[in-house]
């Protein structure tokens, strides 16, 4: 773009792509621990502290076959050129998503080394540390000078009283746009124990976003027990969401909190339609049991729920996918998510191409904006809008080539010894 064009460019940009799932990580364990409350910092991060983030791997037979090896590692697609793990450099992340993928807004959902789900006090402290870290390093100051970054207020799924306190602490922050809870709870989210969290979330007109988390083995119970492999766990995640959706509908949560929205992230969206049909049928037959649920489940879901697309399935006929999404109320219920920087990342441009013109804007932006009411539908023009870059593939290929050449020559200078170790999906 020439200087002349820039002079006449409008000063605001209508929001056309909202990415509801991006995973930032700290540059190092030290960066995160600065925000960690005592006594937990001393108790857990004095000796053997490097092993704590890895502990989830010890509990789970997670695949080591390298699903995300090309995203991270030296020269990986999402590996910041100046070092650090994928998702650790705010400017590089903004460049890949906002410039290369044309995304306007990003919702940051940290997954900083798995919930402490056996210890409610530690879990609450861990959430508190994540929010303080996210605000300081991503949502405020230089990192968010463009205002594209928003975040979830991470709250404990096993300590709802602390969750409500955490929501109160951050709800007025302009960049925190949802309460954010890990989906691996001990009971379903409609259970009365979540009342303090639901009340605080609704009071501030925030949605409740949730993200899946568990890996194979004893941390990932399904209705029939425990899966052996990671490749089993991921498709089985939809059952976690089916149970939460069912619970929220039949516990009458949205009758009590008519402004509340629920956003299910990382579970995909193609399973929503058959669940809605079945909930409707059972409600028609058995609704005396749940008088608090006064409307048809499918109506409640269409009004109050959002399902983030990633991982978007690829049945052989694209028409089949579109029909399945439309049956699930896509034009109202579905929102785009990329899951960057994980290997199963869905690029925005690709997702936008899959869906029909008639509800593309709903999926890519409008349905998210109506749930995340703190996000302005128009944003100021910023430096990312004016960045002109060649095809990102060429740049990524050259970056990788330089790193490989330096590694072979023994001149590779980037120190990644302190890079954050995070799960891959």
């Amino acid at each position: 773009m020439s200087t002349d064009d820039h002079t006449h460019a409008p000063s605001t940009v209508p929001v056309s792509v909202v990415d509801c799932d991006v995973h930032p990580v700290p540059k190092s364990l030290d960066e995160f621990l600065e925000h960690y409350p005592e006594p937990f910092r001393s108790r857990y991060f004095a000796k053997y502290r490097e092993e704590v983030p890895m502990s989830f791997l010890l509990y789970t037979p997670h695949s080591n076959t390298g699903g995300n090896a090309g995203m991270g590692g030296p020269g990986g697609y999402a590996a910041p050129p100046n070092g650090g793990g994928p998702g650790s450099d705010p400017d590089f992340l903004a460049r890949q998503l906002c410039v290369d993928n044309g995304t306007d807004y990003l919702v940051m959902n940290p997954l900083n080394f798995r919930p402490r789900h056996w210890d409610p006090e530690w879990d609450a402290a861990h959430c508190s540390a994540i929010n303080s870290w996210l605000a300081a390093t991503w949502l405020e100051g230089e990192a968010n000078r463009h205002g594209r970054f928003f975040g979830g207020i991470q709250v404990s799924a096993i300590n709802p009283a602390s969750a409500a306190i955490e929501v109160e602490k951050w709800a007025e922050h302009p960049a925190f746009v949802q309460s954010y809870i890990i989906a691996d709870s001990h009971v379903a989210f409609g259970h009365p124990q979540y009342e303090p969290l639901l009340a605080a979330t609704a009071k501030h007109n925030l949605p409740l976003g949730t993200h899946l988390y568990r890996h194979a083995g004893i941390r990932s119970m399904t209705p029939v027990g425990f899966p052996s492999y990671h490749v089993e766990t991921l498709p089985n995640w939809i059952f976690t969401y089916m149970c939460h959706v069912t619970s929220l509908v039949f516990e009458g949560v949205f009758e009590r909190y008519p402004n509340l929205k629920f956003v299910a992230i990382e579970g995909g969206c193609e399973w929503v339609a058959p669940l809605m049909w079945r909930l409707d049928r059972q409600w028609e037959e058995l609704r005396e049991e749940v008088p608090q649920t006064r409307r048809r489940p499918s109506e409640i879901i269409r009004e109050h729920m959002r399902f983030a697309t990633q991982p978007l399935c690829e049945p052989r006929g694209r028409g089949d996918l579109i029909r399945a999404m439309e049956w699930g109320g896509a034009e109202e219920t579905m929102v785009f998510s990329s899951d960057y920087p994980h290997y199963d990342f869905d690029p925005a441009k690709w997702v936008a191409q899959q869906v029909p013109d008639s509800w593309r804007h709903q999926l890519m932006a409008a349905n998210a904006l109506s749930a995340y009411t703190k996000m302005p539908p128009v944003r100021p023009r910023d430096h990312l809008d004016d960045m002109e870059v060649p095809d990102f593939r060429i740049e990524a290929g050259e970056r990788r080539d330089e790193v490989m050449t330096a590694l072979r020559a023994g001149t590779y200078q980037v120190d990644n010894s302190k890079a954050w170790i995070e799960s891959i999906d």
Partner: protein
Amino acid sequence: MTRSHVVGRVEDIPPGSSKFVPVGKFGVGVYNVDGEFRAVTNYCPHRGGPLCVGKRYPVIESKEPYEFETSGSDEILKCPWHGWEFDLRDGMAEVGGKRIRLHTVRVADGMVVLEGV
């Protein structure tokens, strides 16, 4: 219009290594697979990812659970997005029937030359 590009000296791209050439719309990765060269468009046929950023792996075969054999060299190129795997020898995807675009690459006077990009 297409042209020839000198990628480098044969001895600078030993077996298992590769060279990225920033030509064409997406760039081309030139791979040495057991002494033979393959040139791959840096565009994954699955979702358009930067395929040549991917890492290489041996072929892994299993006759029964918990027993597997790996080939001696890294014939497989795995896309950084979604991990789709392609056999550099014939360009075929390991699953799904898709094929990567291979360009002509030849060796002349000790130089690796990429054609037709």
